């Protein structure tokens, strides 16, 4: 177990290193950073001085090492556009995105898994067919359209929920703001969380359904029935657990994309998260922000993948003995 985790950790570090290399290359070679920082009226001498001060004349290796050292301390330099440290900018936006992603992931899991189990067990019931039809909408409609539809119904028409923003937030410590503690904050979360999580929810539901149908046909489920076990135990202890390995893989990857690519939802709901920041960075060629965002996204994916790998081993005992086999 320890060997397994340490090997996975080494791989994770290698992946992060490669991403850092790409991110650094982006920063250093896509256009001249000096050109993007200063105005047209800056003299060549001033440019050269700035270049020297930023260390851009040092050998590439040294610059890369500096970039890595900086990245390790969350220091990605200053944003061209805002003239503020990138880490600070992202830090301000991160809580909003994380809270939104967290809620929508919970929504996807806690609605998607039971629906998947239900439709897998009662494949011919009317409710199953209704769930499947609704899930088809979730898969086929684009996110922005669902968002606008929800705003139209619940904000404009019924006026139950706000149509944009985070509502009132409470600052926790120096660097985290939360919307969980105020009514308006919670209300503001509902629509964007559903919009963001709907696709993942339908995906999880359909995946679990397909896996359940498969597992229910296996011999060990037949044998469990022949032993007279109650259906609660058969469905949840024996069947659901056996569907988990593929479900965890997909859910993990999806969770990564919820966090990293909440851009569309954040744009529709004017959610002050990282997605919006990234969009502005792209529009303004704000490379430090893009580089940092790339690193952060990679870090999130690598962490989730590591967690998924460890979960595999926790769930499936057959993977624990990979080294002792024949």
């Amino acid at each position: 177990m320890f060997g397994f985790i340490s090997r996975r950790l080494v791989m994770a570090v290698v992946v992060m290193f490669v991403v850092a290399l790409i991110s650094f290359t982006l920063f250093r070679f896509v256009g001249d950073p000096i050109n993007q920082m200063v105005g047209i009226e800056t003299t060549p001498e001033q440019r050269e001085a700035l270049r020297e001060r930023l260390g851009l004349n040092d050998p590439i290796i040294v610059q890369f090492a500096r970039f890595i050292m900086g990245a390790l301390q969350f220091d990605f330099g200053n944003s061209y556009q805002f003239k503020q440290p990138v880490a600070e900018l992202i830090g301000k936006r991160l809580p909003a995105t994380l809270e939104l992603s967290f809620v929508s992931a919970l929504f996807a899991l806690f609605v998607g898994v039971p629906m998947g189990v239900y439709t897998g067990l009662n494949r011919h019931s009317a409710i199953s067919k209704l769930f499947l039809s609704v899930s088809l909408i979730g898969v086929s409609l684009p996110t922005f359209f669902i968002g606008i539809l929800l705003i139209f119904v619940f904000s404009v028409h019924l006026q139950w929920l706000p149509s944009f923003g985070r509502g009132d937030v409470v600052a926790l410590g120096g660097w985290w703001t939360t919307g969980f503690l105020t009514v308006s904050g919670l209300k503001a979360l509902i629509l964007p969380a559903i919009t963001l999580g709907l696709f993942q929810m339908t995906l999880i539901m359909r995946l679990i359904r397909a896996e359940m149908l498969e597992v229910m046909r296996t011999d060990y489920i037949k044998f469990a029935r022949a032993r007279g076990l109650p259906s609660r135990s058969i469905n949840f202890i024996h069947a659901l657990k056996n569907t988990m390995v593929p479900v965890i893989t997909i859910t993990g990857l999806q969770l990564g994309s919820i966090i990293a690519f909440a851009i569309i939802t954040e744009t529709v709901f004017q959610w002050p998260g990282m997605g919006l920041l990234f969009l502005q960075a792209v529009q303004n060629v704000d490379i430090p922000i893009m580089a940092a965002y790339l690193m952060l996204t990679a870090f999130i994916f690598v962490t989730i993948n590591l967690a998924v790998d460890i979960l595999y081993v926790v769930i499936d005992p057959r993977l624990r003995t990979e080294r002792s086999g024949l």
Partner: protein
Amino acid sequence: MSILEIRGLTVEFPGRKDTFVAARDINLSIEPGKILGVVGESGAGKSTVGNAVIGLLEHPGRLGAGEIFVHGERIDNLPAKRMRELRGKRIGMIFQDPLTSLDPLQTVEFQLVETMLEHLPISKGEAKQRAIDLLDQVGIPNPAERVKQYPHQFSGGMRQRVVIALALCAEPEVVIADEPTTALDVSIQAQILNLMKKLCAEKNVAMLVITHDMGVIAEITDHVAVMYRGNLVEYGESQQILGSPQHEYTKSLIAAVPRPDVRVHRFPQVDYIEGSAKPFKQIDIATHWLGQSRDYTPVDGALLSVDQIDMKFMTRNAWLPKNRQFFQALKKVSFDIKPGETFGLVGESGSGKSTVARVITGLYHPSAGTVTFAGQELTSLHDRRQVLAMRRQMQMIFQDPYSSLNARMRVKDIVAEPIKFHKLASTNSECFRIVDDLLDHVGLGSAAGKKYPHEFSGGQRQRISIARALATRPRFLICDEPTSALDVSIQAQILNLLKDLQDELGLTMLFISHDLAVIRQMCNRTGVMRFGELLEVQETEALFESPQADYTKELLGLMPSMDMLSRDNLEEEVA
């Protein structure tokens, strides 16, 4: 008084157009401590009877008529909830494949304790202790330690013991065993059968054993019921039924069991099964494409010779060669096959028989040693044209007729593929004329060519495989367990077909099987394998009469005894 009693049981599967009756008017009863065998071929409805008793008929099956009693209490009309409580508690069931009947993610202890707590009024601690006792009773060493393990940590035979423990853990009065040993090796089969017999007597349960294997019936049952197409055709004491069968079907079924004791020239066929052998156009081999222009260099001595073959598979990779771990699948295997001979390889699963076949056909490259075919060393061939020329001369027939044919191709395209690949026919129409003849010759009829593999039964698919193998006009045929997946009557037909083809075409064969009786009927000489080693090679008759290696003696001793089976009245039929 009988524990299980089945009266007038009829099981129906309503379809869109008409209702299929899977079992019709079945009457059976079992006394405590006795074993009733239900025997029949696939589709006879024997599993349906078992499923009906435990109330787990596959959708949309239903009881059309009849009553089932356990200890005088009628159970077939119980509501679903009561029936569920009955399962495991009063009726236990053992399934065919021990590798798939246990939940892979839960420990053996969890599965045992869960079942016991459901049915028995005991505490969790008592249940855990009982779980250990049960494993001990079914003959698992170190039960206290092994109970904490997961199913994948047990071998196939041990898993079947766990399955038996699970079926018995709530002390049921009736146990249904559906093909309990079909997926196991002979030596394990003998152990499991003994265990079942012992437990049945000790715990005084009534056991219903469903099997297609006459050997199992002869070995453990007290009574036997013979089923044919949903009907109970004969029912009585095992000794009597096996010794002097009355019904025609029973007679031919017993006759079709390959005899381990005497070699007969042809396999007696189950004639009772109507419509199985329609006569097709027979081609005259002497003038036909299949028989002519066999442009092979004649050989003196051995056609195939395998010399000191070693085969290693890496089981653990490492950067340093010394840390790598290997599994030695073959250890210095050497044998020769003479032209026109059938050479048998026998052994249990994992003994390396199939690996030998794969090394000969070049699917695996041996770690050491050489394979020489018709004077040409195969292991050193690198030129693609030469390799193809060798491949054309040897063909293979695989065990599983379901997965060895491409389901998306028509049968005629499957058979034509090797002809086209090796460019053996000059035109397309000639090629398909040959395919038609081949399909006729293997007893399928040329009309079969337009169909897809799924439209055929297992035996018919195996005929397609044979036609495909013959399509390159090979002189060497490797049959890897060609009949293991087939019913005994179908097995007889396929083996006869292989024998006929061999006589007509002068084929040389390597015949791999775990079934000693089949080996005795098919092979001139036979090698016995174990753990990757070839223990002995002898003339088949000599091997059976005076085995040299201890392991061979052990294997021969483990064959289910067929003494009970009536052979007297069959001698005439065969003769």
